[in-house]
């Protein structure tokens, strides 16, 4: 059965099916003032008992509550004391003469419905909290008593229509996973499962009805799978998968909290390359400290016209709001070359990689460029956005771009829009002429980012797409290494930031070499961060400099690669 995997991991265990108990309407009405007053008093009493119950849950050390659990309890305590719920309930009791049971069921049902109909996924998921507190009050009306702890056998996998927030909290350690009929990524079940580190699959649909107590279940929270009564082979396969996953997850978790500092105390910054706001979660999961490259191409692709300033603003804002105030470097449009837009008809070129692309288009069609710059400037008030220009080949291009940036600011000023006035501007170093004139360019910008993919292709005159010459595409070619080393030297001399966002930053063979050259900012696909980090924390700059000196004296890349591989082994 397929569902949405909301908490990764694999669990193998026995099913325990949980059915919801519906509390029914009674239909009896109240006929005198005394009864009305009594019902209102009963409401207040039940609410205060419910609050007490949650408060004591909060302090129950046996439950091993996570930060997320406490937050849910706090929210529910606040909901229980919400004046709106009391007001509506009292209204139904005193005006409609309903008894407390029926009044409360009605009030809660209305509120749940209101939240379920909201056009926001997070708010829709809150309907579960409201239902949950409603049930809690009702429980205190009907059965006076204790909290709802349940006993489970070891390795229980819970199968339920949905799991209420308080049920997830009180679930004991024997529960190793759960699958639900309904639910979404933002439901409590999902949040708590993730915090507890147990796999969960939600939104499986009614197919789960066929599962009985004690059926053997394999729960694959990575792929969103629920397998019922699997054969021996499958169990063996998944047991192995589970071990591999746990080992990997442990390593990741250990490394995530470790700062990338070399043995001798040099702080390195590891950032991620991303394409949209949803990637932000991965960045932090893998221990990244910001975004060294936000590609903006996705924003322009898969549509039939250029995105407006507002559409772009929303895109950048979404990213920056999720960046926890860490730096995010936005690369301006990098279309042309191998990236085409259906609505922007570029003539077919003989040599597209040497043609009309990236900054060259922007400086030619300034309207396009200004729109993007304005959107970035506006979004920058929400965090630490920086602008990066791709494909710079000479200083004149930088100056022109700066003029256009000034015009963008003027326009925003006239429009009375709020924007970041002192945004940092940097350039990609990916064309050999830019690398060789790094000393000149460094005076014009706030930072460099070395794009090794294009730098390699342009330096070596090797088309990345041509399969016949892939062996020549070689970032360890001494020519490429010298260029990179020179760029880092010049940036450091002139005290501007220098980072690297190409493939080489994620290549473990190159890490020591780059550290030795003096590179301190690396940006890569988020998943590569832990590996590079483990190299950094196990080495010192002294060794790295030694490696670098040695490599820079070598003559061909074959020997260089052999040497570096030996060093990492």
């Amino acid at each position: 059965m397929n569902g949405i995997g909301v908490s990764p991991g694999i669990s193998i265990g026995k099913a325990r099916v949980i059915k919801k108990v519906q509390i029914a309407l009674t239909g009896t009405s109240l006929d005198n003032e005394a009864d009305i007053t009594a019902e209102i008093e009963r409401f207040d009493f039940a609410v205060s008992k419910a609050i007490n119950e949650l408060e004591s849950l909060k302090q129950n050390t046996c439950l091993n509550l996570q930060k997320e659990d406490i937050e849910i309890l706090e929210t529910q305590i606040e909901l229980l004391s919400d004046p709106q719920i009391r007001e509506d309930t009292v209204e139904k009791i005193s005006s409609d003469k309903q008894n407390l049971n029926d009044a409360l069921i009605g009030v809660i049902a209305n509120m749940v419905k209101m939240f379920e109909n909201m056009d926001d996924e997070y708010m829709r998921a809150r309907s579960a909290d409201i239902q949950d507190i409603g049930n809690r009050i009702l429980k205190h009306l009907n059965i006076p008593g204790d909290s709802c702890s349940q006993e489970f056998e070891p390795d229980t996998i819970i199968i339920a229509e949905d799991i209420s927030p308080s049920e997830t909290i009180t679930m004991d350690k024997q529960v190793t996973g759960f699958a639900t009929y309904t639910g979404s990524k933002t439901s409590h079940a999902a949040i708590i499962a993730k915090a507890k580190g147990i796999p969960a699959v939600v939104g499986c649909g009614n197919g789960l009805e066929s599962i009985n107590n004690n059926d053997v279940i394999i729960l694959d929270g990575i792929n969103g799978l629920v397998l019922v009564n699997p054969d021996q082979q499958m169990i063996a396969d998944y047991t192995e998968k589970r071990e591999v996953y746990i080992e990997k997850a442990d390593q990741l978790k250990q490394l995530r909290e470790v700062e990338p500092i070399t043995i001798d105390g040099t702080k390195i910054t590891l950032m991620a390359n991303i394409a949209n706001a949803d990637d932000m979660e991965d960045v932090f999961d893998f221990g990244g400290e910001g975004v060294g490259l936000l590609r903006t191409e996705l924003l322009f692709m898969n549509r039939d016209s250029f995105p407006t300033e507002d559409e772009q603003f929303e895109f950048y804002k979404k990213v920056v709001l999720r960046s926890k105030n860490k730096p995010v470097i936005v690369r301006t449009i990098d279309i042309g070359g191998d990236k085409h837009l259906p609505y922007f008809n570029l003539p077919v070129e003989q040599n597209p990689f040497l043609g009309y692309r990236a900054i060259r288009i922007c400086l030619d069609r300034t309207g396009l460029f200004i729109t993007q710059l304005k959107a970035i400037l506006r979004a920058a008030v929400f965090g630490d956005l920086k602008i990066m220009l791709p494909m710079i080949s000479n200083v004149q291009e930088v100056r022109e771009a700066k003029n256009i940036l000034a015009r963008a600011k003027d326009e925003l000023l006239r429009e009375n829009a709020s924007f970041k006035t002192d945004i940092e501007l940097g350039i990609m170093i990916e064309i050999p002429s830019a690398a060789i004139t790094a000393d000149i360019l460094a005076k014009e910008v706030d930072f460099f980012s070395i794009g090794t993919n294009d730098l390699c292709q342009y330096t070596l005159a090797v088309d990345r797409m041509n399969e016949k010459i892939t062996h020549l595409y070689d970032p360890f070619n001494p020519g490429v290494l010298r260029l990179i080393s020179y760029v880092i030297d010049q940036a450091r001399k002139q005290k501007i930031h220098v980072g690297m966002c190409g493939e080489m930053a994620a290549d473990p063979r190159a890490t020591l070499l780059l550290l030795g050259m003096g590179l301190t900012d690396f940006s890569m696909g988020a998943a590569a961060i832990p590996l590079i980090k483990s190299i950094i924390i196990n080495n010192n700059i002294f060794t790295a400099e030694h490696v670098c000196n040695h490599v820079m004296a070598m003559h061909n890349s074959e020997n260089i690669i052999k040497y570096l591989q030996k060093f990492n082994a």
Partner: protein
Amino acid sequence: MISKDYVIMSPQGLHARPATTLIRLTKNFKSTISLKKNDKLVRLNSMLNILSLVIKGGETISIVIDGEDEIIATEAIDLFFTQQLKEL
């Protein structure tokens, strides 16, 4: 009466957790504290009312404070929206 506009600086907007903090903060003051979004005004003592406005990250809302301790309340609210909310 004091009225001030704020841009919501947290990605998830004013969701349950910050709303809880905000409600508890307002309980420290005697003033009536309300929140307004798109001409809809609610008292800041009800989680349901706050959530029902669906306040998202980047949106602008106004806070209206009225009462004897409105100046000090404004300062506290100001701190909440400009600093604390980002960390919640």
